[in-house]
């Protein structure tokens, strides 16, 4: 085998290796987008459900007005925030706050037996629990995709292509408080 032939094989192999690295970065980026879209779908379900819950809570929970208002405000903010890479940080922050406030609201509901006995509220809470589980699942999918992408962004040679594609290390969708990492099981407050 001639020297030129060996050189050609090495060049082709190197080019193929780089192409595979490039394709993998693009695939990982797309996977993150898919995961983010999946979170968005689940969050939309939460936003649709919240007005009903808050309206019912508003009737009975006179002493929790500020908490209900906070939830309403955060829902509106979340709805108005665009869902793309540029706003991920902001979106995660609002969602963490909203989940935290909703958790507080659930705990407060303990003090309102009349509200707890409302059939429509029980049903809404059942749906809410299910939606929260879906959100938790979507968040896990997103975090797994982020881990893969961040590795690609930080490790050579994929880091070269990540830079060219304008990708940087992206934040995980984390809930701040340890106890809040588990999905909210609203039904527990209705036992």
């Amino acid at each position: 085998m001639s020297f030129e032939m060996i050189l050609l094989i090495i060049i082709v192999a190197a080019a193929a290796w780089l192409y595979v690295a490039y394709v993998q970065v693009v695939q990982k980026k797309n996977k993150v987008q898919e995961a983010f879209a999946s979170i968005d779908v689940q969050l939309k379900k939460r936003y649709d459900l919240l007005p009903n819950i808050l309206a019912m809570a508003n009737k009975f929970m006179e002493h929790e007005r500020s908490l209900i208002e906070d939830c309403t405000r955060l829902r509106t903010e979340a709805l108005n925030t665009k869902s793309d890479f540029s706003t991920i940080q902001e979106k995660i922050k609002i969602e963490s706050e909203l989940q935290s406030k909703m958790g507080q609201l659930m705990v407060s509901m303990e003090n309102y037996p009349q509200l707890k006995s409302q059939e429509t509220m029980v049903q809404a809470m059942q749906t809410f629990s299910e939606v929260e589980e879906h959100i938790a699942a979507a968040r896990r999918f997103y975090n797994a995709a982020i881990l893969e992408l961040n590795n690609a962004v930080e490790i050579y040679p994929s880091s070269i292509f990540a830079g060219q594609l304008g990708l940087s290390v992206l934040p995980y969708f984390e809930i701040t408080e340890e106890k809040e990492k588990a999905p909210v099981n609203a039904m527990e407050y209705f036992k």
Partner: protein
Amino acid sequence: MLATTQEAQEYRKKFHQYYYDRIVGHLSAFENARKPALSFYTFWLSLVAATIVATIAVLIHLNQISPDTCWDNHGSGEATMQLGALIAAGFFLLAKKVAKDFENKVKTGIIRSFLSFFGDFSWSCKDSISRDDILESGLVGNFNELKSDDYFEGTHRGLKVVISENKLIRGSGKNRSTIFEGLFIQLDINKRFSGHTLIREDNVLAVFEKPDRSMEDVQLEDVEFNKMFNVYADDQTEARFLITAAFIERFKNLRQVYSARDIRASFLNNSLIVAINCKKDMFRLGNVRKPVADTGQMQELFEEFVAVLSLVELLNLDSKTGL
């Protein structure tokens, strides 16, 4: 197989008394039927032994009279061996049939009393989980023959439970091989989902058993679980909705609980099918060689059944959340 769930322990406490109150009374009738069955069984097995001895004697004789041609291709020695093996196998199958018939007779008579301890379960030795359900689940690859043994159906903790003992055979003739021998446990679950999620053990054969292309590899957060199992799903989010951190912990312990060689699970059509490949004939009752009143057999059947039902508690399937 020894389940250690709280429910299993409660069952154990109550079953002892139940056995003496509701089951022992039925056993004496079967003990009378066992004696003639055992005679037939022994008779056929004696014929197996006699055939083997006779074949060896003929082979020695043939070797003495014509030592040069006896072991040639298609020689008299080879023909004698084949004939002997065929006759012995025939007698052995007859002995097995006698034992199986007796087992089914005892099961038919006793199992209803046994199962009523657990609720509304029914038993059959003819039914089976359907071929379509097995294939659709993606738990095993294609197979040619579906052999069924015990089949139980009922409700446990409000969930429909189907337990099917099967043997799956692939290929034909000399290429026949058993690809699965064990239990398919089909359980309805309280979570609504629309896709397909598959959990398979990660072993050397996993490379050759890729599921269909619409399913993607799912990497979960638990490193140990990822080493033990491969997860495939057509919806990444739904897979994580079904396989929660709690489910992962519980599923990791299953192989140990069931002493299984291989354990797999498939979430499809709002039910979960768990395949436990244990290469053991389970749910045996009415061993023709043992007295019907032998408590060991009943104890084993009880433990096997409780272990399967414990799956609902082990995997927390009856709960609406936290699966």
